[in-house]
């Protein structure tokens, strides 16, 4: 079970670019459980091996160990670890230093922090040349320009003088890749290289990595997202709890996943799964249930019907209770501009109109800078529109004073991408929810103060317990602080807090973007379930069209502040009309 040797499908002559046999890595005392235990794999030149697993599965530690950077307190043991036939086990720090960058390169996620923000990217790239070659500074500069050009960054003269903060996400990721391939290492390790990028940019970066692979570089691609790696990986190794639990050619692993962990990862990919399908299947699931005809039809609208085979469709939602107006949220001609340095004005939101029907989900999708977060702030009345109006439950919302908005505030809840940042880190889960229950709950008619206040108020305690139960969290977590929770647990607490005021509308701004695909699946399932139980209306904002496709009844695509296309989900995904939408759709990571 512990060691599934992974061998290239067609082994070329000579030693593989990398061979690892029975590698274990542990930290701290020798009795402690190893973080990586007994894994074996090989990568040949011109081949891409994807190592996939949830956070904490040991994949990043594996990557660092391959560079001799597991840390001073790491215990690394293996029967073999060799790069291009030469053993790299028990190398001295000095000989590791000569190999890093020359024999093996590393690309990390988010180049904003993976390139020194104080130094021009040209100097970062030239550093590899300075450390390993005898090139003169002028020769290094001209080589940097060639490198920038080869990773698809024209205008090298300008780019090399800019710092990572002055480049776009895609540009700086390209620069980071250029610094890793400056010496053309035979082995390149990319650890979550496209996480935090927009889907279209992600597709471009994957394309670049594939080009590098085709040049003959052995590529190890590390990710939590099966759909992302399936684009370019020749073989996949699935890691769980420090072991490789399943390996094989990509199409085999994805097409016929054998291990429960792999099946769960395949099921968790939201793109192409019909609305209401459970993404987070129970881990011990038996043989996959066949998709119903209705689900299959819906899935056919999207391109990836095959993956629905492992998902469990659920009954249609109960009809929404007949209370209040059918349109719970309405935005008309919303416009909001900001003054930029230099005096120009940027229209972040430009004539945006939409309606949210009771009990449904409106997905707003767009890439970074498209104005979707500004739209969320306008809807939440955190900022005022320059023109246009937002109405909530048929009543004026953006046009009235905050004092007049107060009574309606409880109807609108919000959850955010960065759940951790939205909590006071000193408060326990119990306090976070108790404050929410008290402040958003009923008020005493005489004093106007919260009725459910105080640590010993039984009703408040009951409400907290009920909220926790709603988001499927154990009461044992009540005394934890946000930092002691996992990402998924934090987001659940965020949802519980949003539900404290019994809202009818939930504004979700990138609620799953910071989560692993597996955790994302659980949170999406939870939101779907809550919507069903509480007849919630969701405004779901995301950069991820795959997620939006899965959750939405109606979809609006934003680009440069405008809504370029808006339609009901089935027809939207079946026949997108706007070219931008089509480009966005083709970039969504899906399972083959």
């Amino acid at each position: 079970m512990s060691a599934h040797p992974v061998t290239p499908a067609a082994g070329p002559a000579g030693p593989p670019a990398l061979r690892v046999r029975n590698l274990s890595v542990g930290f701290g005392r020798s009795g402690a459980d190893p973080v990586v235990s007994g894994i074996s794999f090989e990568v040949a030149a011109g081949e891409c091996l994807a190592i996939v697993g949830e956070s904490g599965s040991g994949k990043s530690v594996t990557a660092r160990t391959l560079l001799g950077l597991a840390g001073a307190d790491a215990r690394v043991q293996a029967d073999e670890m060799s790069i291009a036939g030469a053993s790299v086990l028990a190398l001295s720090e000095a000989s590791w230093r000569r190999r890093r960058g020359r024999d093996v390169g590393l690309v990390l996620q988010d180049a904003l922090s993976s390139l020194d923000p104080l130094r021009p990217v040209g100097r970062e790239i030239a550093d590899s040349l300075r450390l390993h070659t005898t090139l003169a500074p002028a020769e290094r500069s001209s080589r940097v320009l060639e490198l920038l050009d080869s990773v698809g960054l024209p205008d090298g003269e300008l780019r090399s003088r800019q710092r990572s903060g002055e480049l776009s996400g895609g540009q700086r990721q390209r620069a980071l890749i250029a610094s890793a391939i400056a010496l053309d290492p035979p082995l390149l390790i990319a650890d979550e290289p496209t996480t935090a990028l927009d889907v279209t940019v992600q597709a471009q970066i994957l394309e670049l990595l594939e080009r590098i692979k085709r040049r003959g570089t052995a590529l190890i691609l590390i990710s939590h997202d099966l759909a992302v790696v399936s684009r370019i990986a020749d073989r996949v190794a699935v890691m769980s709890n420090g072991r490789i639990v399943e390996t094989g050619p990509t199409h085999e692993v994805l097409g016929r996943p054998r291990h429960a962990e792999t099946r769960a990862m395949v099921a968790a990919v939201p793109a192409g799964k019909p609305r209401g399908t459970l993404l987070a299947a129970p881990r011990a699931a038996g043989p996959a249930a066949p998709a119903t005809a209705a689900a299959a039809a819906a899935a056919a609208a999207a391109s990836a019907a095959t993956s629905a085979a492992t998902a469990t469709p659920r009954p249609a939602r109960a009809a929404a209770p007949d209370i209040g107006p059918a349109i719970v949220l309405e935005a008309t001609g919303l416009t909001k501009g900001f003054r930029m340095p230099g005096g120009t004005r940027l229209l972040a939101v430009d004539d945006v109109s939409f309606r949210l029907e009771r009990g449904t989900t409106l997905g707003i999708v767009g890439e970074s800078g498209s104005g979707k977060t500004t739209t969320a702030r306008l809807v939440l009345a955190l900022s005022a529109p320059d023109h246009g109006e937002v109405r909530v439950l048929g009543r004026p919302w953006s046009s009235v004073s905050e004092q007049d908005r107060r009574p309606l505030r409880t109807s609108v809840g919000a959850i955010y991408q960065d759940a951790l940042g939205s909590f006071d880190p000193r408060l326990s889960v119990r306090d976070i929810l108790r404050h929410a229950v008290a402040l958003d709950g009923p008020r005493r008619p005489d004093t106007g103060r919260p009725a459910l206040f105080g640590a010993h108020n039984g009703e408040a305690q009951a409400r907290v317990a009920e909220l926790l139960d709603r988001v499927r969290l154990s009461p044992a977590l009540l005394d934890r602080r946000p930092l002691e929770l996992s990402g998924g647990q934090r987001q659940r607490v965020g949802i519980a807090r949003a539900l404290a005021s019994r809202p009818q509308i939930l504004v979700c701004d990138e609620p799953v973007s910071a989560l692993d695909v597996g955790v994302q699946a659980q949170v999406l399932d939870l939101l779907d379930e809550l919507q069903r139980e509480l007849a919630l209306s969701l405004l779901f904002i995301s950069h991820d069209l795959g997620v939006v496709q899965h959750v939405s009844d109606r979809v609006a695509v934003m680009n440069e502040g405008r809504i370029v296309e808006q339609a009901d989900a089935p027809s939207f995904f079946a026949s997108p009309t706007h070219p931008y939408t089509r480009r966005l759709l083709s970039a969504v990571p899906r399972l083959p």
Partner: protein
Amino acid sequence: MAEPVRRTPALRRLAARLGGAVFVLWAVATLTFFAVRLIPGDPAEAILGGPGSQASAEALASVRAEYGLDQPILVQYLAQLGRLAGGDLGRSYALKLDVGPLVLSQLGGTLVLAGLALALAWLIALALATWSTRGGRIAARVGSGLEIVAASLPHFWLATALIVLFSIWLGVLPPISTPGPAGLVLPVLTLALPLAGFLGQIIREPLLTALESPFVLSALARGESARGVRWNHAIRHAAIPAISLSGWAFGSLISGAVVVETVFARPGLGRTLLNAVTVRDVPVVIGVVMVVAVAYILMTLLTDAATRIADPRTRAR
């Protein structure tokens, strides 16, 4: 990041800076003018040689008329502001000398003292922070402990302790500040050690953060050495907060100079100020304070410029 976008705010920023500097100087002059009035005693008596001089009533009256001390306080204040605006610092009551040349003659010694102390404090702080963040957990404890102890040393105590150690026990350095480099060692050390502790504490935290950050991992993966990572990447991140605090630190060094120059009997602004306060020599007090304020403003401009060089991200704003 187009050039024209940057240029207009630069001019506006300069104008705002100048306006701010004028405001600070006015506020300093005003506060000092009224504060010295709180020193007990009659200024006319001070002019005639202090309370022991037994000056006659006629002499006092004529001095008051001559110096305008019989005028209402507001008139005196405005007259003082007018003189200052014209660059005239007035004439010392006690020394019967023009304040301007007097203060300037003392300025050099204090600037040398404060400048050397600032440089030495930076050296010690950088050495301590880099050594203690490299050497494992025990070194880290020792380093941060030393910083706390150093930062909490009072100048007068440290000066005395250094004199006892180096002049009386070891006999290697003079106990008073003789001309020449040897006489500078103990005063500079006295000022530098507490500041080094303070700067070290400010440098340590961002240094540790920088050493843990992804760009350091990227650099290591390129083949950069531990030392290279430290000096090419981390130290710059760590220095930025300390650089911006150096302007303030310089001000505190000049106030520290009052104590140090007195203990080591070293001529300079600090001692001049102390003497002037003691004999209620109002023009000298105001003169010293104004010159120190100007030096402080210039130092702040300098550290701001240094911050902008060290952290290019602040330039765009």
